[in-house]
């Protein structure tokens, strides 16, 4: 036993931590999971997937009109072609923002989200008030994100399901004609691909 004079403390794990350890240790003993595989998954989603995959899809669509047409016609296949295969068996439908239409996505049921291209959902997407208000008052939600959508632009809200996820293709910002694909991808934010952000051009 350790010396108890100064800090007579034993360790304490939270209830949640205990539950996760119970699950993981039992599943490991049964050979159903292994630590290496779990670490690889966490690493992939934390560091490799992220919204950068989606940003590269968007940048490719901006520079390559054939790719863009394919992406809008069959998002799942066009995204898979860049190596970002969906592991969840859900189709990804790509929604094009234009001068006339602004798309935003939401999942009112359970925060379904296009992980393979956007990484893990941001906190707001996991929030019930966001999910429900986005459907009832999309312009109000967008205003809170600093996006005042002009009245003559139609706002469309898309509710994801476990079978269909949506990815918004934002408009290419003005003043980016000279940028290459990689530089363009740097401009694309995750929220622009959810539809709560619109991209600003380099020249204002």
């Amino acid at each position, binding site marked *: *036993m*350790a010396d108890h004079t100064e800090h007579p*403390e*034993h*360790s304490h*794990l939270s209830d*949640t*931590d*205990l*539950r*996760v*350890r*119970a*699950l*993981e*240790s*039992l*599943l490991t003993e*049964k050979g*159903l*999971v292994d630590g290496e*595989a*779990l*670490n690889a*998954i*966490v*690493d992939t*989603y*934390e*560091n*490799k997937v*992220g*919204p950068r*995959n989606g940003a*590269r899809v968007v940048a490719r669509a901006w520079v390559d009109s054939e790719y863009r047409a394919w992406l809008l016609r069959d998002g799942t296949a066009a995204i898979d072609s860049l*190596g*970002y295969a969906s*592991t*969840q*068996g*859900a189709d990804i439908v790509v929604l094009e923002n234009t001068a006339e239409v602004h798309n935003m996505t939401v999942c009112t*049921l*359970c*925060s*379904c989200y296009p992980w393979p291209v956007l*990484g*893990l959902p*941001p*906190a707001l*997407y*996991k*929030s*019930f*008030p966001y999910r429900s208000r986005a459907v009832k008052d999309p312009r109000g939600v967008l205003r809170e994100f600093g996006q005042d959508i002009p009245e003559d632009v139609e706002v469309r809200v898309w509710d994801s399901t*476990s*079978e269909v996820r949506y990815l918004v293709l934002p408009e290419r910002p003005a003043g980016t004609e000279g940028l290459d694909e*990689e530089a363009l991808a740097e401009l694309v*934010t*995750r*929220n622009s691909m959810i539809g709560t952000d619109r991209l600003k051009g380099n020249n204002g």
Partner: protein
Amino acid sequence: MTSDVNVPTQADLPSLPRDEDGPVFDEPWQAQAFAMTVWLHEQGHFTWPEWAEHLGAEIAAAVGEGDPDLGDTYYLHWLKALETLVAEKGLLTAGALADRKEAWDRAAHATPHGQPIVLPPDA
């Protein structure tokens, strides 16, 4: 295609798992719960729609009980859905999970602060 898609490696992102919109996981257990679910699904133990249905049901139940559901409880619902689903699929029983949770609690209590907590071999 001239170059393959340049996926950033860990070396490109040396700091916390964070992107421009904040941390990906708030606590390590969330990452573990997430990874176990993805792995079990990849191994074919359940379909993604089955998973989504369970998670959705947990969230709906919590909201019904007054959870304001601001996103901070998302992975708690996730964990509960996973516990339910592994029991339903016969991968583990609820009883085994409860016993093992107790064993971890005893192990924590028996471990001086700051030392790694390990389960005794007879747990």
